């Protein structure tokens, strides 16, 4: 264990030092080869121009290399695989996509993903807003917010242990140790196997993601609410608008852009949701979602990369509109900033 610690320490130093060394030395070299303080002005201007043409790429270089290797190349590879058979050797055209369109599990996943998309971002944003507004008005608000934020720090595996414990089922007449069934029994109903209840089990899985992500929404929306100009609120208050009216008519429209950001961020997350389904049900009892379906086609039972890749591409296409919107947003901001 001591060697392990030492190796970690050494690599931190080497890794970080290596990074620093790269940035320092490459910039130093640039300044040396094309000195800005050259003998005559013409050369200096030329060198400065060259410097400013090269330097951004020195800054950007390592990041670009990482992005190309770790993300762009795999995406291209996946597109290629989606047009090939399960071993990735024979070209099969659109067969994998045609198969997907007909496959009942795939349709089930699309339907479930649609449910997730409908419910989770909305629920997170809704609770986030409510909690942000309420906690802003009490002295222990920050503590409350921290507690609601806390699940964000918990891993999906940890969360699944927590929620398996909540949803635990024991037969009728036995002592329940899952709190949900205990409550249900207390009110005189019979205990349920929550994660296998057809259709509704999807919602029991969604609850977990909502539980994790609401804190994120709360914090961001809370900050945005604070940014609503005071005079607007005062004016409305003087006009005799009720609190709910102020909230819906004035505050919500004012922070609409932030609400959209929160909504999109969670939407992207939902499309990638995988761990919760894998650890809670592995897609059984009709809870399959696209990301998990892809994982299972890629890696279970010998694997079929063609179909797995096709599903991955479908996920990518599904998030495309959000991507485009985000890119536009980024570009617009770019223009505004400079």
């Amino acid at each position, binding site marked *: 264990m001591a*060697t*392990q610690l*030492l*190796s970690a320490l*050494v*690599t931190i*130093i*080497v890794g970080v*030092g*290596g990074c620093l*060394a790269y940035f320092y030395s490459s910039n130093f070299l640039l300044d040396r080869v094309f000195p800005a303080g050259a003998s005559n002005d013409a050369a200096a201007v030329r060198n400065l121009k060259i410097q400013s043409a090269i330097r951004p790429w020195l800054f950007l270089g390592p990041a670009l290399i990482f992005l190309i290797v770790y993300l762009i190349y795999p995406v291209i590879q996946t597109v290629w695989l989606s047009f090939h058979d399960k*071993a990735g050797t024979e070209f099969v055209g659109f067969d994998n996509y045609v*198969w997907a369109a007909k*496959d*009942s599990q795939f349709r089930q996943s699309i339907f479930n993903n649609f449910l997730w998309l409908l419910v989770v971002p909305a629920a997170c944003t809704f609770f986030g807003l409510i909690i942000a507004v309420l906690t802003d008005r009490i002295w222990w608000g920050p503590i409350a917010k921290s507690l609601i934020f806390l699940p964000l720090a918990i891993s999906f595996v940890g969360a699944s242990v927590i929620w398996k414990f909540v949803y635990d*089922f*024991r*037969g*009728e007449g*036995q002592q329940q140790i899952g709190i949900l069934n205990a409550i249900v029994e207390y009110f005189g109903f019979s205990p*349920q*196997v929550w*994660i*296998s209840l*057809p259709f509704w089990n999807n919602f029991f899985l969604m609850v977990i993601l909502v539980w994790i992500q609401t804190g994120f929404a709360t914090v961001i929306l809370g900050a945005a609410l604070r940014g609503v100009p005071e005079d607007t609120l005062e004016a409305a208050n003087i006009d005799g608008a009720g609190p709910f009216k102020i909230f819906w008519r004035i505050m919500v429209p004012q922070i609409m852009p932030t609400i959209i950001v929160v909504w999109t961020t969670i939407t992207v997350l939902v499309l990638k949701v995988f761990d919760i389904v*894998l*650890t809670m*049900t*592995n*897609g*059984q*009892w009709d809870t399959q979602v696209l990301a998990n379906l892809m*994982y*299972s086609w*890629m*890696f*279970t*039972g*010998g*694997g*079929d*990369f063609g179909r797995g890749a096709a599903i991955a591409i479908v996920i990518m296409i599904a998030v495309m509109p959000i991507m485009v919107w985000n890119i536009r947003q980024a570009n617009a901001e770019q223009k505004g900033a400079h």
Partner: protein
Amino acid sequence: MKFRLAFGVAALTLSLSAPAFAADLKYPLGEGPFHWENFEALKKIDLKGETLTIFGPWRGDDEAHIQVVLEYFRQATGAEVKYSSSENYEQQVVIDTEAGSPANISILPQPGLLADLAAKGRLVPLSADDAKFITDNYGAGSSWVALGTYKGKDGASSFYAFPYKADLKSLVWYVPENFKDAGYEIPQTMEDLVKLSDQIVADGGKPWCIGLGSGGATGWPATDWVEDMMLRTQPPEVYDKWVTNEIKFDSPEVVGAIEAFGKFAKNNAWVDGGAAGVASTDFRDSPKGLFSAPPKCYMHRQASFIPSFFPEGTKVGTDADFFYFPPIAEMPNLGKPVLGAGTLAAITKDSKAARAFIEYLKMPLSHEVFMKDGGFLTPLKTVNQEAYVNDAARKQGEILSSATTFRFDGSDLMPGKIGAGAFWTGMVDFVGGKSAQDTGAAIQKAWDEIK
């Protein structure tokens, strides 16, 4: 210079992870019912400085057992042996082989999955001698060879996977004292078993504990039930055609077997927790119901490995025991069919050490050590039967050998996408309320799609 030095240190420290520790041999050399001459023979293979990586399905107690077995290999050959496993080993082995970084030896319980890997060219064939060894020295040797023989990437059949460790599936576990207290007799026929179940219900108890939960593999225990029912309602030839899909999943023979399972699992009066509880109860928790007071159930059908999940300190043979899941008396021509399973070792990355390990698996010693440590049955005839950890294991060995029909777990023989996918989910849906006919049709549809 400084930088290179530092990098060198980093590389050095990185390579120092997990030094092999020389643990003591659990069973001292020269004592006990072991073939110690094998150890001497093994010593002649010098593997010092070689590393052998093994990937297997065993975790928890079983992992402790295999480590004991491996320790003898380590000490005799000097090789460094690293065993690893994964909760999702079926996926992990695909990831590893696909990426080109598999272990030297991959041990898997699914011939179907191994066949898939062989077809993709991910396995290295074993020698014809290895196949001959199995034929000559294993009980029902040729059927074991068949289990390990697959078509390679070039379409030619070769022997790829060496069977090591068998499991007996057709067992019903019970608590003898509970039976004694209630005055129940061990049933000899399926008819008696049904009568006993009804009797238990009449006495106010629940006869069965059934749990299908197993994380990502939820549903598999039900496939064993269906296979056992197939063997008890249909001749073995039908079973063989079923696993190759010559007989469709929605044919009356198969649907009948699924329904026979449903008679147990979908019967709220017969199953602890009701049909709804069956699919959600973890198979590892399920047998615990036998041991509560009052008992949640009286019987639990599960393979020979299940005592690992009995409450701490349970003595198999006295605190808990098993009987053979009986055949149907009305169909005497089917004899005493036995359903089994086993794990097979294949070379996924060839090396001298990997070949030496296969040699080790041929030696009785590698079987005896595991037998002695527990949870191991073997069809290898040359082992010392004394090595079985207890009478129960020996008794299971007898059932294995006295079976008139032995068949390997069908779901493990089917293509991975079915046997470790559609069949599992299908059974979950079936227990959840789908009809046997629809369930069979859904699985058949999945099978058609991968053809």
